[in-house]
């Protein structure tokens, strides 16, 4: 009953009473664990991820090899652990670079309007006219396979959504009275853009970039699965799934474990993004109190 009382529940989402908040806590825990795994990979991994041991190939999971071994006898557990590094590295680099580019262009576009806006937004339209994965494929084909080129291709594809989002928010914020009063106080344009407008458009950007991490992990794994990303023997989840493809009937653990890693990671980032969106949207927060 007491939930119907209007009390300021600023951090109600941190309590673990609702199913929703348990999922949030779980996803936060998973992400922390992933980051820890990536940093401490050499300590956690029981074997060298690239050491070939043909005598022990295609072994089922055991105490010595928790996730079994692949067709070259490499420890899948160690490879999955080292794969965390690759996935997180690619996704964080892609998201931070594309978000920075997108935010900057969106800010300029929304703030100045006119011809600048027109040019930037038409460029965005052109980028959006291609299916993003096809465009990434084309770029990698032109530049050659490799994780660095995956990063480049995905960045070129991903900045557009940030530019659009930020431009829309800037258009909304720049009409606010506090921006006008900042102008009346003699603030320069740059100062108004970066001190007054930018912080006020960051909330949705945070949500989108968190969700985007999941998206980028999937795209990067997909490209590696197709053989365009990480090259052997780099331990990368998508490439590992591809390696296990031939043996899926006889030794499914080759595909299951890296596949699960991809799934759990992107799920965790998606959940976290969903929670962030709810937490940063005051309308949804009020809705929940009622």
């Amino acid at each position: 009953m007491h939930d119907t009382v209007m009390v300021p529940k600023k951090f109600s989402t941190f309590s673990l009473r609702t199913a929703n908040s348990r999922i949030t806590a779980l996803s936060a825990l998973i992400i922390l664990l992933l980051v820890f795994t990536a940093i401490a990979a050499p300590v956690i991994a029981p074997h060298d991820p690239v050491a070939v041991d043909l005598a022990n190939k295609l072994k089922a999971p055991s105490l010595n090899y928790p996730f079994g071994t692949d067709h070259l006898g490499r420890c899948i557990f160690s490879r999955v652990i080292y794969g965390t590094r690759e996935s997180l590295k690619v996704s964080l680099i892609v998201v931070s670079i594309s978000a920075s580019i997108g935010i900057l262009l969106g800010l300029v576009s929304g703030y100045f309007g006119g011809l600048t806006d027109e040019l930037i937004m038409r460029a965005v339209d052109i980028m959006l006219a291609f299916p993003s994965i096809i465009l990434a494929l084309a770029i990698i084909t032109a530049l050659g396979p490799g994780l660095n080129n995956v990063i480049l291709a995905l960045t070129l594809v991903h900045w557009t959504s940030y530019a659009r989002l930020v431009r829309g928010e800037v258009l909304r914020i720049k009409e606010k009275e506090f921006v006008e009063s900042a102008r009346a106080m003699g603030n320069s344009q740059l100062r108004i853009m970066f001190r007054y407008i930018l912080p006020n458009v960051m909330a949705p950007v945070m949500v989108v970039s968190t969700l985007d991490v999941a998206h980028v992990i999937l795209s990067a794994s997909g490209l590696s699965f197709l053989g365009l990303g990480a090259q052997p023997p780099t331990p990368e989840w998508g490439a590992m799934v591809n390696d296990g493809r031939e043996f899926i009937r006889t030794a499914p653990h080759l595909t299951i474990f890296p596949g699960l890693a991809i799934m759990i990671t992107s799920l965790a980032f998606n959940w976290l993004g969903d929670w962030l969106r709810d937490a940063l949207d005051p309308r949804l927060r009020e809705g929940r109190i009622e």
Partner: protein
Amino acid sequence: MVLVQTAMENSEQKAKTAETLLEIRNLKTYFKINGSIVKAVDNVSLKIINGEILGLIGETGCGKSVLGLSILRLLPENAKIEGNLLFRGKEILSLSKAEMRKLRGKEIVLIPQNPSTSLNPLMQIGCQVLEAVIRHHNLKKSEAVSKVLDLFSKLKLQEPPRKFRDFPHQLSGGMKQRVLMAMGVACNPKLIIVDEPTKGLDAVLRIEVVRMLKETASAAGTSMLLITHDFSVAAALAHRIAVMYAGEIVEMGKTAAVLRNPRHPYTAGLLNSLPGKGFNPIPGSSPSIISLPEGCRFHPRCSRANMKCTASHPELVKLNDDHFVRCFNVCF
């Protein structure tokens, strides 16, 4: 009325030594909206001398806020400003953007009308005031901070050091109003444009705000353009009053003269519509400034209107020394 008289005396004392701070000559601010032209401010001329408070009174949409923004050149791009805006003898309209930025916040300050939405929600209020002080005074940060804390305690914001770090959502409306005032007076400007200082405030706060404005103005000898629709605020503060209707000034004169003997039927009507004076509303509503009536803009609502009023547009005429009216049938 006592307040009015003291205000009058002040203005007379100052008038002897005063020089013109701001002179507006034939100011026209037009907006182009969907091909039609909206004359938000039409041919307005007025003067503000040093240390004077000019009350600009009018209904919603009569162009008084646009006039204030025109002075600072803060209008959207579809606005066109014509005429002369002379600030201390210099033409504002011909200043470059950089010169304009130096003027804003330092020489001329706008205290905006909505305290609740006029502060950056993601910036500590102290920093927002600090920015202006540092930029315009070239002070060291520590000096500027102590200046801001000083201002806060002068404006009766409790526990200045703690308030300094507060964010706007932690303050009440009255406190935000005071923060905005602190921003306004921080750089000792020559002219403060106060846009509806009492809008949305309750009676107690209104008195408080009026008192603070009065103190600020008299302490530093700052001139003020007080934009309001509240006669009691204007009566308490302003030395002179200008009444605006549909983009034009219809009556201008010393506060006491305008309030005691309104010469324009619109001013008289406004005064009669006050709760203390019988609550008699003016019939009709103010015209849309997109399609203004022919002749005198007030004639459709005016009880004194005749043939001449519908046919031709009256000019602002000087009645006596410092009292101007735009009407063919001046009230006596």
